[in-house]
């Protein structure tokens, strides 16, 4: 036994060897560390970003007392609020007045619409508080003071001191802006019935309650109650209680956050981010772990002479194993450090990016320690597990055997060698093929690694293709109108004709929209039933083949997501309870189910809907196609027309949606792609580098025999090139599968990602991996050029 002091000295020498070995293989070590870092960083970034965003949303909602339930009515006396507060499970409730409004913005020709909401008469209220970013709240006795939603104010350069003209309930108000605010109710400021928020075209204004009551003929009354639930309260029970209480006042039915426009958008986006964060990073981490395991096994396998030497000096198997574990642990630690730092930093950057995107007033950054522990454990196990196996195998050799050259491996018994005997092959190509056939597992793993990189790239980048198709279908095929005009309340068909006749209108189609509850068995969903003309051209539901699905007389066409939620098929009968007017309950046959990418829909013929509602030929609004050259004059006429509640501009929405998607998904996809490429680099560079280490003698022999550098490179790099070419189709197949899974997993109430992969996406993914292969090959080629023939041949190692 070595005494304590001697042991220390020996360990010091061993540690010096460790440091030098690491330095000697620094490029390889770095490449492995990057693979680990890629897996770790992507995981931590997704985890950190998601926890932070969810925490931020929760904190925002809590701090600003975001409502749990909304209960609109037509008109109810103020005294009724006491009854609402008495409902079991209601922690706080506020009544208010809320109306759609047209906002007259002199800085643009397009009409801006929005809503106007009353502020509590005293104090900040117990539900839905505002977060002032500029100015102050209106004073109770100042009837014309208003607060404007920040997004809209920013888009128009509005600041405290400016004034604003608003058309509400057919009357015109002139308001003075005193404050700019954010609201938890309007994280997404979006017009009802629209799919895309546009801060320029849609604004929210808060003002004095009495003034608004007077303007909207709601003196002493309200038209909406907002409720916060007590902890543990049953939302459905409270909604039922509210509906019972408010039914006599024309209530279409209370709804929870799930149906609140802004929050359902936020929730849907977070769901997408969560899916992406739950699907992609584990794949990265697994691929990284798997690669690291292989690479380390091979690195240690080529160290067998060194291991024999250490054992010859008297080191025990355990000490030898520990020495190599330390080497590997150092690489692993480097990977974890790079990945951990990068992941945390990127998580924060991404969270901040989304915070701005969602217009949260603050960010609660939280990185869950458990995520770090889990990621470290998985990476550590992969790295050290691979190393321990390899080091144990190497340490088990007796020293004499380990120090001599290993006998040449036997190529005669590998299956499939037959094809390599083909006369047509030259010897170099034969060597490449035999190397692959003799070690199919090794070749398979290299291929799997390269294929996984390709698949990851395709599985993330396809989303851009998918979204393009989604937007194209939604705006180009299903909703081909430029402008949708909605009336304050249903109006006779003549209102449609008078709008259709306006100059600049090229085509017009009336529609009737009625809020409803759809029931099938015990399942219930809220939706608007839209009545359209039989030959609707401007707004229609589209089937999988891209054809319009026209509702047959008396029948209803449902979007597939609604049909799925209600577990209903074409041919079944659905129960519809209209929640406005006389509230008829109807049984209607479902004529067809149409797959839609964006939003939900329930369409029938307008005359059928009018008949079911027992009303004359009335319309809720008009879809228009307009002449782009005459559009400004048309907008002016529309905003001045009587009874127009809102004008939404579909044409602009397409661009906004595309931009929004780019902004939202683009950053995340960019980062995932970058890490995908990084993993490819790690796999390919290490494969070549290790092959080089393993075959140095062979390559040197070839140089001695008179083969040029190019010919020798062919043998080394040809193998990886060949495997890469084989891996590309595999990766494309895997990427297709991953994309299919992601398309399903990422779909939400708002969007259903179509499973579409453009050829250019396949091309791009393959090009990235090929570029990585070429780059790695050039790096190793440089070493091959410096190959020292003499020492490679003379020594055993």
């Amino acid at each position, binding site marked *: 036994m070595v005494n304590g002091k001697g042991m220390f000295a020996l360990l010091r020498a061993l540690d010096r060897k460790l440091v030098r070995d690491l330095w000697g293989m620094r490029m390889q070590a770095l490449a492995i560390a990057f693979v680990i870092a890629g897996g770790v960083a992507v995981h931590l970034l997704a985890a950190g970003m998601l926890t932070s965003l969810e925490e931020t949303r929760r904190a925002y909602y809590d701090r600003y007392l975001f409502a749990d339930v909304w209960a609109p009515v037509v008109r109810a006396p103020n005294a009724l609020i006491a009854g609402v507060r008495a409902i079991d499970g209601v922690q706080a409730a506020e009544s208010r007045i809320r109306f759609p409004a047209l906002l007259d913005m002199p800085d643009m020709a397009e009409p801006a619409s929005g809503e106007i909401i009353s502020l509590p008469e005293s104090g900040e209220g117990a539900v839905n508080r505002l977060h002032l970013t500029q100015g102050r709240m209106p004073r109770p006795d100042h009837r014309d003071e208003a607060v404007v939603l920040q997004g809209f104010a920013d888009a128009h350069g509005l600041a405290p001191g400016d004034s604003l003209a608003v058309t509400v309930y057919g009357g015109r108000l002139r308001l003075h802006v005193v404050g700019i605010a954010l609201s938890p109710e309007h994280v997404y400021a979006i017009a009802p019935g629209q799919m895309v928020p546009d801060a320029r075209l849609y604004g929210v204004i808060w003002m004095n309650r009495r003034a608004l009551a007077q303007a909207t003929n709601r003196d002493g009354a309200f038209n909406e109650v907002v409720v916060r639930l007590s902890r543990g309260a049953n939302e459905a029970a409270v909604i039922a209680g509210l509906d019972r209480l408010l039914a006599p006042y024309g209530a279409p039915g209370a709804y929870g956050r799930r149906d609140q426009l802004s929050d359902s958008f936020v929730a849907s986006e977070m769901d997408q981010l969560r899916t992406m964060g739950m699907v992609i990073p584990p794949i990265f981490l697994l691929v990284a772990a798997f690669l690291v395991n292989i690479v380390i096994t091979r690195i240690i396998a080529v160290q067998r002479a060194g291991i024999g030497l250490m054992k010859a000096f008297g080191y025990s198997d355990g000490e030898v194993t520990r020495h190599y574990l330390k080497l590997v642990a150092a690489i692993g630690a480097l990977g974890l450090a790079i990945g951990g730092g990068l992941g945390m930093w990127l998580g924060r950057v991404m969270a901040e990016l989304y915070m701005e995107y969602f217009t949260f007033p603050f960010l609660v950054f939280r990185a869950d320690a458990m995520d770090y522990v889990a990621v470290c454990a998985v990476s550590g196990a992969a790295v050290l597990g691979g190393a321990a196996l390899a080091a144990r195998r190497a340490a088990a050799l007796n020293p004499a055997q380990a120090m001599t*050259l290993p*006998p*040449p*491996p*036997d*190529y*005669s018994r590998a299956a499939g060698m037959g094809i390599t005997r083909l006369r047509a092959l*030259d*010897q*170099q190509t*034969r*060597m490449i093929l*035999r*190397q692959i056939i*003799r070690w199919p597992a090794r070749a398979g793993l290299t291929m799997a690694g390269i294929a996984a990189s390709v698949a990851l790239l395709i599985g993330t980048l396809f989303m851009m293709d998918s979204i393009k198709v989604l937007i194209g279908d939604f705006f180009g095929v299903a909703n081909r109108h430029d402008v949708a005009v909605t009336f304050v309340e249903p109006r006779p068909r003549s209102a449609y004709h008078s709008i259709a006749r306006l100059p600049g209108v090229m085509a017009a189609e009336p529609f009737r929209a009625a809020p409803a509850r759809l029931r099938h068995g015990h399942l219930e969903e809220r939706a608007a039933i839209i009545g359209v003309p039989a030959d609707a051209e401007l707004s229609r539901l589209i089937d999988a083949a891209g054809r319009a699905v026209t509702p047959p007389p008396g029948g209803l066409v449902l979007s597939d997501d609604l049909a799925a939620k209600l577990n209903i098929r074409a041919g079944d009968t659905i129960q519809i309870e209209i929640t406005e007017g006389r509230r008829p309950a109807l049984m209607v046959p479902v004529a067809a189910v149409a797959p839609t990418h964006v939003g939900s829909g329930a369409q029938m013929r307008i005359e059928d809907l009018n008949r079911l509602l027992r009303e004359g030929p009335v319309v809720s609004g008009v879809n228009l196609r307009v002449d782009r050259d005459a559009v400004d004059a048309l907008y002016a006429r529309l905003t001045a027309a009587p009874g127009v509640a809102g004008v939404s501009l579909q044409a602009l929405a397409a661009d906004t949606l595309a931009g929004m998607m780019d902004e939202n998904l683009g950053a995340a996809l960019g980062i995932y792609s970058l890490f995908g490429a990084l993993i490819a680099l790690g796999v390919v560079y290490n494969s070549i580098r290790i092959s080089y280490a393993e075959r140095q*003698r*062979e390559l*040197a*022999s*070839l*140089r*001695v*025999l*008179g*083969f*040029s*550098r190019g*010919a020798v490179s062919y043998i080394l790099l040809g193998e990886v090139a060949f495997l890469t070419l084989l891996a590309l189709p595999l990766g494309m197949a895997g990427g297709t599968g991953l994309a299919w899974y992601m398309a399903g997993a990422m779909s939400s109430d708002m969007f259903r990602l179509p499973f579409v992969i453009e050829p250019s996406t396949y091309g791009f993914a393959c090009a990235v991996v090929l570029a990585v292969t070429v780059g790695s090959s050039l790096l190793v080629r440089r070493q091959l050029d410096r190959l020292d*023939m*003499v020492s490679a*041949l*003379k020594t*055993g190692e």
Partner: protein
Amino acid sequence: MPEARTKRAATARAGKADGICFSTRGLTKVYGHGTGAVHALRGVDIELPDGELIVVLGASGSGKSTFLNIIGGLDRATGGEVVFRGRDIGAAGQRELTEFRRRHVGFVFQFYNLMPSLTAWENVALVTEIAENPLKPEDALAMVGLEQRLGHFPGQLSGGEQQRVAIARAVAKQPSVLLCDEPTGALDSPTGVRVLEALKTVNDDLKSTTLIITHNQSVAAMADRVVIFADGRVREVRKNTAKTHPKDISW
């Protein structure tokens, strides 16, 4: 087949100018620099005639391997001149050296350095495919007595057999020079003798100038000429007048 072999041997002999294969003058080789510099060759002057079988002896570090590597075009001299049949290869670039090795030099090493993924026949074919006037791989293997083992992989051959494949591979291109660095170093005596017999056959049939580096004094008995290295210089060159057949050598 013997006629064919003689004909090719005649072609290989053509082009000799003055009967000298290699001549060196003031050949030096220094590894490293400054205080750590190692002088492997300290001025070697020697002439090696064509077609001879030359055994190079010397202790470890005497410079014999360095000498072999330089005249074989594997390494460059630090100073002095190396002339191969009237051409100065000391000044040649990487590309020319590759060409020189490909056309003129056959190497045999202590550890065989066969391609494990190629059979005996294919290992030889590896060289004949890039040579100008090669033997058929099966003929080269027949010269070293391996005509029955053409389809075997190195992993299926004994050490002696692997070394004989390496010799067949080296001679298949009918090189002007055959350089062997400790060819019997890893072999036992009877196997080593078979390898030496193969080298002698090649030297007799092809008339390639053959250099055998060895620690083994007894091998000198089969040489036309014995060169002894010591301390980076040639200490002695001796002509062997009483050549012994390898089968009478043992150690």
